[in-house]
């Protein structure tokens, strides 16, 4: 367990200048990724998860964006301080990235082959012929039939799932140590999503690369991640192993998210929901950014003396929350061994120390995919009711 982390993010702060003033999409984010680990960064739109990943590769448009402070250490290099020329060697070669919409990351006027070969030749000292060989091999690895012919095709000739495979092939052609996957399956259908996730897990096992998986889909997180970091309103509010997050979520936001997801085969009745909406980064509330939506703070306020609570009025409702939630923004503290949370109301929070979340954990069970040869047999079993 004395392995060194591959990537260390320390107190990252990113700001964007807008006509209405500066907004802070990422505040004090710290995260470690170990070799071969899948770390999931979870949150809703606008929580800062994508900006965090873009700032690792320094892909934030600047201006208006800038990294205010913080370190991003890859091995022993600090990425924000690296000269642009050095940074270009990191992008694609050591850290690769795949995006949500495969069409926007492929150039429509070049063939698939040209695009993969370009990346290969940029980072590896090989001849054009060898590069085409590598490109063909990487297409085969991601399960594309007849890769030699596919190399001659243009992106529009392929379906969405196929394009995402091409993007993955391109990202992996230089054997990166870290793959950043930003919502890799959100634009895909559920059966294709299963194929792509299966593929990513297989490639991860084979190459030993680490993956930073950015997603809002808790099902995808549960079945793939080793460690989960939950972001809300530009901060990390909870970090733990995937088992801990789903078994014992501590932050009221995480708890609310897990309760509000409809599950297959779950009991009927009303869904629980989190009231209110995700706050706009230009108008964050004071104190804990979650307090206007927090059911835990409301419950606690009901039994607390009046001077410790404050009344909040929104257009929809009026309620009371704890005063401390509106005045002091909680830091991320290790509230239980290996479990970090940022909420005044987590048990043992006041007695815990502020510390950086470091978790070199690997999950035990991965999703239970059936081997291709047994697939038909399993369908028969299930349809005949032999298996639940």
């Amino acid at each position, binding site marked *: 367990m004395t392995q060194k982390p591959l990537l260390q993010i320390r107190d990252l702060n990113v700001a964007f200048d807008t006509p209405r003033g500066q907004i802070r999409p990422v505040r004090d984010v710290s995260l470690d990724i170990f070799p071969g680990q899948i770390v999931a960064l979870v949150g*809703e*739109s606008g929580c800062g998860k994508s900006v965090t990943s873009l700032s690792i590769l320094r892909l934030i448009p600047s201006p208006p964006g800038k990294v205010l402070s913080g370190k991003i250490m890859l091995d022993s290099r600090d990425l924000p301080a690296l000269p642009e020329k050095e940074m270009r060697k990191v992008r694609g070669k050591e850290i690769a990235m795949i995006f949500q919409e495969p069409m926007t990351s492929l150039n429509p006027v070049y063939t698939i082959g040209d695009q993969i070969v370009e990346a290969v030749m940029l980072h590896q000292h090989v001849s054009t012929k060898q590069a085409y060989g590598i490109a063909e091999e990487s297409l085969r690895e991601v399960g594309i*039939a*007849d890769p030699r012919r596919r190399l001659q095709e243009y992106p529009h000739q392929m*379906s969405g*799932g*196929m394009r995402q495979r091409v993007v993955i092939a391109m990202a992996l052609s230089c054997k990166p140590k870290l793959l950043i996957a930003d919502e890799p399956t959100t634009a895909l*259908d*559920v*059966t294709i*999503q*299963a*194929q792509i*996730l*299966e593929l990513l897990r297989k490639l991860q096992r084979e190459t030993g690369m680490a993956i930073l998986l950015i997603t*809002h*889909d*808790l*099902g*995808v*997180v*549960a*079945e793939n991640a080793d460690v989960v970091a939950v972001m809300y309103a530009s901060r990390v509010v909870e970090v733990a192993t*995937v*088992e801990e*997050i*789903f*078994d014992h979520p501590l932050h009221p936001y995480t708890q*609310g*998210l*897990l309760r*509000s*997801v*409809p599950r*297959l*085969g*779950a009991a009927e009745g*009303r*869904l629980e*929901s*989190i*009231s209110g*909406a*995700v706050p706009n980064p230009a108008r964050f509330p004071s104190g804990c950014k979650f307090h206007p939506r927090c059911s835990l703070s409301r419950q606690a306020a009901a039994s607390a003396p009046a001077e410790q609570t404050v009344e909040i009025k929104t*257009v*929809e409702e009026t309620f009371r929350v704890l005063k401390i939630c509106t005045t002091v923004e909680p830091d991320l503290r290790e509230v239980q061994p290996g479990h970090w949370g940022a909420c005044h109301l987590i048990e043992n929070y006041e007695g815990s120390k502020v510390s950086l979340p470091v978790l070199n954990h690997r999950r035990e*069970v991965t*999703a*239970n995919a*059936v081997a*291709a040869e047994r*697939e*038909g*047999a*399993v*369908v*028969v079993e*299930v*349809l005949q*009711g032999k298996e639940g």
Partner: protein
Amino acid sequence: MSFFVGVKKAWARRPCHLLDGVVTVTEMMQTTSAPLPVETPLVRVRELRTWFPIKRGILSQTVGQVKAVDGVSFDVREGKTLGLVGESGCGKTTVGRTILRLIPRTTGTVEYRGKDFFAYQGESLRKLRRHMQIIFQDPVSSLNPRMTVGNIIGEPIQVHGIAKGGERDELVASLLQRVGLDPSFAARYPHEFSGGQRQRIGIARALSLSPDFIVCDEPVSALDVSIQSQILNLLDDLQQERKIAYLFIAHNLAVVEHFSDEVAVMYLGRIVEKASSKELYSNPKHPYTLSLLSAVPEPNPRPKKTRIVLKGEVPSPSNPPTGCAFHPRCPLTREMARGGDERDTVQITSGGEPVRVLRKCVDEFPALEQKQGEAGHVAACWVTT
């Protein structure tokens, strides 16, 4: 001058000509107010087909048809929800829009309260439309950015002559309140709202004419997880209060299960399985439904279910496979073909590799038929029982 006279005459003739042999407004108003016999569904769809021609060349000759919807039948009962699930391109959205006549049908019938909906024309059709509304997926593009929220919701009320002026504004205020928004929002524009709030505005607009049938086309898939459940709960409450029937179109199986009384699964323009929500999820019969269910990631780090990862992609509806459209991807027919009689099987190419499948699946199209299990549980598959 004579030209204008001609136009005027034609214009004067038009309504009478169009209304010939068509249900009149008064007749329609009577039919809708009468209570519905128990056995008559609110909306009955039979053998609906929506084909889009593929045109090529300078003369725009039709060279083929995209069979987006190809023979779909179902009932939506009063105050109940029918869920329609399937992957992108399976035709589920086209079904919803064809039913509302937003897209012309090719063949088939749609009955609303026992009357042929396609027979309505002109004014009587316009009057009938107030009973059938739609909620769209994208709450940004479905609201006119240049209209205030009050006008967006109030326009249908005014157009249908339900109320105007102060009375209209009162109605708008009560609708806003009902969907969980502040009545003062009526003066604002759509861009001032978050995605969830915009979807609430879209729902208020759909409600403004007190419909009894609403097509919900992916109403929550563009929303954040924490907002989705708010909107689903709102739709649920409205159904309880106002006895609205929903055709709930979605690709998220967990959402559909939670929300629907009955679920139909579509694949390449056809319904391949239909059953009550509980039955379909606990006892799926079609291998496609089974694969679809098994592919949904569970929010559980120790997944119990066995995952079947389907090979290949959804084929193009312009050139669907013969027989059962699912046969090139079907794990069941492969299994049954293994070790089967040579004469009953056939070799095909799927995803670039040769596979052996049952001949029947390639040659003959399976009809929806009752399977073992609950009454009304139908599936279109040659292999399952």
